C-alpha cells in the first residue's frame, strides 16, 4: 500500500442507550492509501457505517461518542481537532455520500442550491461562479442538460439521478477522500453498475481516495484495491482484494464466501454461517465470532491476536488458515 492518506488506529465508538452502553466500534484499525479504494465489508450492525460516521464526527448526538483511538488525516487527529476545523474538512477535504439517495437530499431546496451551498461554503466563489461550477459537476456525473436540472427539486429525479447529485455535491470541492456508505444498496442492479463505474472513473479524474462501505463482495471485487472485513465492531481481516479472495484466512471471511452462489458452480445448497450476529450488549469474552465459528476452541475465549497471514494480509484469529 502507498503511504496512507487516512489511518484509523484503535477506534472505539460507543452509544449510550436505554439498554446500556453499545460498543459499536471496538478498536478498529484501518488504513486508506493515497488514490486507492478501500472496501469495508460486513453484515448489518458490524460497525462499518459507524466507523465512517466517526471519521467526520457525524455520529448521532448526544448518544454517540468516540471513546478512544485516533483518526489520522494529513497529520491531524480528526478525533481531537476543533469543531470549526472538522467543519472545514467536511465536504471539502473529506466528503461523504449515503445509502439512501431518496432521503439524503433536502426536499425543499433545488439540487442546484444544494450543490452551490457546499461550493460557496468552501471555495471562494460568487453566486454566478458557483452556479456554473454546480452545472459543470452535474455534467461530470452524467446528468444530461445540467444547467436546466439545477432548478429541479429532488422529488423530480429518480433514485439513481439523486445519487449522482449526491456524488456531484460530494466531489464539488475536489476532496482528497470520498466516504461512500453503501452508495448502491438502495438502487437497482443496472443503476448500481453505472454508479460504481462513475465513482471509479471520477476517483481517477479527481485523484482522490475512496472509503467504500458495502455488504456486497461483488462490489468490492469490482472497484476496490484493498478490503477490510469487520465483525462486531472489529476489523477481523484485511488484505489486498485478490489475496483475500484467493486465500481468505478468518473463518468469518471463509463463511462469507461460502454463503455466496458461484457462477458455473456445481450447484447444491449454499452454506450459510450458522447463528446471527451477537448482540453488542453482551459479547462473549475473546473472539466475538466464536459461537458461530466452525473451528472454535477453548483459547478463542481470549482476545485473539492480529497476525500476518500473507503479504500485506492481516487476520485477527488464533488459527488463521489452519
Amino acid at each position, binding site marked *: 500500500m502507498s503511504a496512507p492518506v487516512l489511518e484509523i488506529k484503535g477506534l472505539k465508538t460507543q452509544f449510550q442507550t436505554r439498554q446500556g452502553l453499545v460498543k459499536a466500534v471496538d478498536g478498529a484499525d484501518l488504513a486508506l492509501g493515497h488514490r486507492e479504494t478501500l472496501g469495508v465489508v460486513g453484515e448489518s450492525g458490524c460497525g462499518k457505517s459507524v466507523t465512517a460516521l466517526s471519521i*467526520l464526527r457525524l455520529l448521532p448526538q448526544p448518544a454517540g461518542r468516540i471513546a478512544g483511538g485516533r483518526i489520522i488525516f494529513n497529520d491531524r487527529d480528526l478525533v481531537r481537532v476543533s469543531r470549526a476545523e472538522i467543519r472545514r474538512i467536511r465536504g471539502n477535504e473529506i466528503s461523504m455520500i449515503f445509502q439512501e439517495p431518496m432521503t439524503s437530499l433536502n426536499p*425543499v431546496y433545488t439540487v442546484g442550491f444544494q450543490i452551490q451551498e457546499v461550493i460557496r461554503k468552501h471555495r471562494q466563489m460568487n453566486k454566478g461562479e458557483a452556479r456554473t461550477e454546480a452545472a459543470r459537476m452535474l455534467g461530470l456525473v452524467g446528468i444530461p442538460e445540467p444547467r436546466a436540472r439545477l432548478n429541479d427539486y429532488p422529488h423530480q429525479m429518480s433514485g439513481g439521478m439523486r445519487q449522482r447529485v*449526491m456524488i456531484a455535491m460530494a466531489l464539488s470541492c475536489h476532496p482528497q477522500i470520498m466516504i461512500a456508505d453503501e452508495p448502491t444498496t438502495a438502487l437497482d442492479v443496472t443503476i448500481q453498475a453505472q454508479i460504481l463505474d462513475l465513482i471509479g472513473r471520477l476517483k481517477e479524474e479527481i485523484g482522490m481516495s475512496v472509503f467504500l462501505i458495502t455488504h456486497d463482495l461483488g462490489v468490492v471485487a469490482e472497484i476496490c484495491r484493498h478490503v477490510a472485513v469487520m465483525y462486531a465492531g472489529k476489523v477481523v481481516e484485511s488484505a489486498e482484494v485478490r489475496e483475500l479472495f484467493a486465500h481468505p484466512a478468518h473463518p468469518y471471511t471463509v463463511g462469507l464466501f461460502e454463503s455466496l452462489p458461484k457462477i458455473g458452480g456445481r450447484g447444491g445448497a449454499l452454506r450459510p454461517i450458522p447463528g446471527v450476529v451477537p448482540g453488542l450488549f453482551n459479547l462473549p469474552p475473546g473472539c466475538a465470532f466464536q459461537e458461530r465459528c466452525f473451528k472454535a476452541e477453548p483459547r478463542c475465549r481470549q482476545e485473539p491476536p492480529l497476525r500476518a497471514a500473507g503479504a500485506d494480509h492481516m487476520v485477527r484469529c488464533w488459527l488463521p488458515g489452519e
Partner: protein
Amino acid sequence: MPLSYISRRLFHLLLILLGVSVLVFLMLRMIPGDPAQLLLGEYARPEELARLRTQLGLDRSYPIQYGIYLQSILRGDFGTSVRTGAPVVDEIGVRLLATIELSLAAMFIATLLGIVAGVISAVKQYSVFDYGSMFLALIGVSMPIFWLGLMLIYLLAVKFPILPMMGRISMGLEAPAVTGLVVVDTLIAGQLGACGDALRHLLLPACTLATIPMAIVARITRSSMLEVLNQDYVRTARAKGLGEAVVILRHALRNAFLPVVTVLGLNLGLLLGGAVLTETIFSWPGLGRYVVDSLMGRDYAAVQGCILIFAVLMALINLIVDLLYVLLDPRIRVHA
C-alpha cells in the same frame, strides 16, 4: 406558484361563501316565528310588520328572498342593528379592525416565542430548557384565559402599575383613522408617543390571548423539529461542513414548518372569532364581544353579518395557509 392554482382556489372560495350565505339566509327563516316579528320585537304594530315583510320580501318565495338577500350583501348592506339603529356593516367594520389588531399582535407574540422555544427545546432535547419550556407550555394550554387576564391586570396594572389595564389608547390621544389599526395609524401620523401608548395598551391583552397558541406552537414546533433533525438530509447538511445554525435554521426548520403553519392558521381563525373573554376582560372594543352582545340582544342582522364575516376570514386564512404550503414545500406544487 401557478396562477391557475390561485384562481381555482379563489373560485372555490367563492363557492364556499355562497354556501355560507345560504346557511346564514336560512338561519333567520329556521328560527320559529315570524322574522319580521323577531326583527321588530313583540310590541310592533301590524302595519309596521306588514311594511317590513314587504321590504324584506318575506311575502315572496324563498329563492326570490335569497336573491334579494344576496343582492343587498353584495351592495354591502348587512341590514340595520335593532339595538343601535346603525348599519351593521359600519358597526362590524370598526370592531373587526380592533379584533384584527389584537389577534395579529397575539399571533406575532405566539409565533415568535413559540417557534424559538420549540426549536431550542428540540435541539437541546432533555435539557433543563426543554423540560422547563414544555412544562410552561403545558401550563399555558391548561390555564383559564380569564384567570390569566385578571392576574396580569392585577400584577402589572394594579399592584405594579406599569401597563394600562383597558382600552386601546389613553384618553386624549387620538390618531386619524386610516387603517383602523391604532398602532399603525399613530405610526403613519408620526405620533410616536401615541404609538407607544397604543402598544402599551395592546401588550396585556395580546399576551393573554397569545398564551394558548404560543404553548401549542411551541409543542408542535418541538415535535416537528425532533422528527426533522433525524432525517438523512440534515446529516447530509452537516457532512457538507455547514455550521450548526445553518443546518438547523435553513435545513431543518424549513422542513419542520408545515405542521406549524397549519396550527398557526387554525389558531388565527380561533383568535379572530373567539377572543370574547380577553376582549371582555380588557374592555377591548372587538368583534367577539359584539357577537355576544348581539346574541344576547337578539340582534339578528348583526349576528348574521358577523357569521358571514367570520366565514370569509376563515376561508381566507385557509387559502393563505394552503398557499404557504405550496411556497414551503415544492413537493405539493406538483399536485397543486
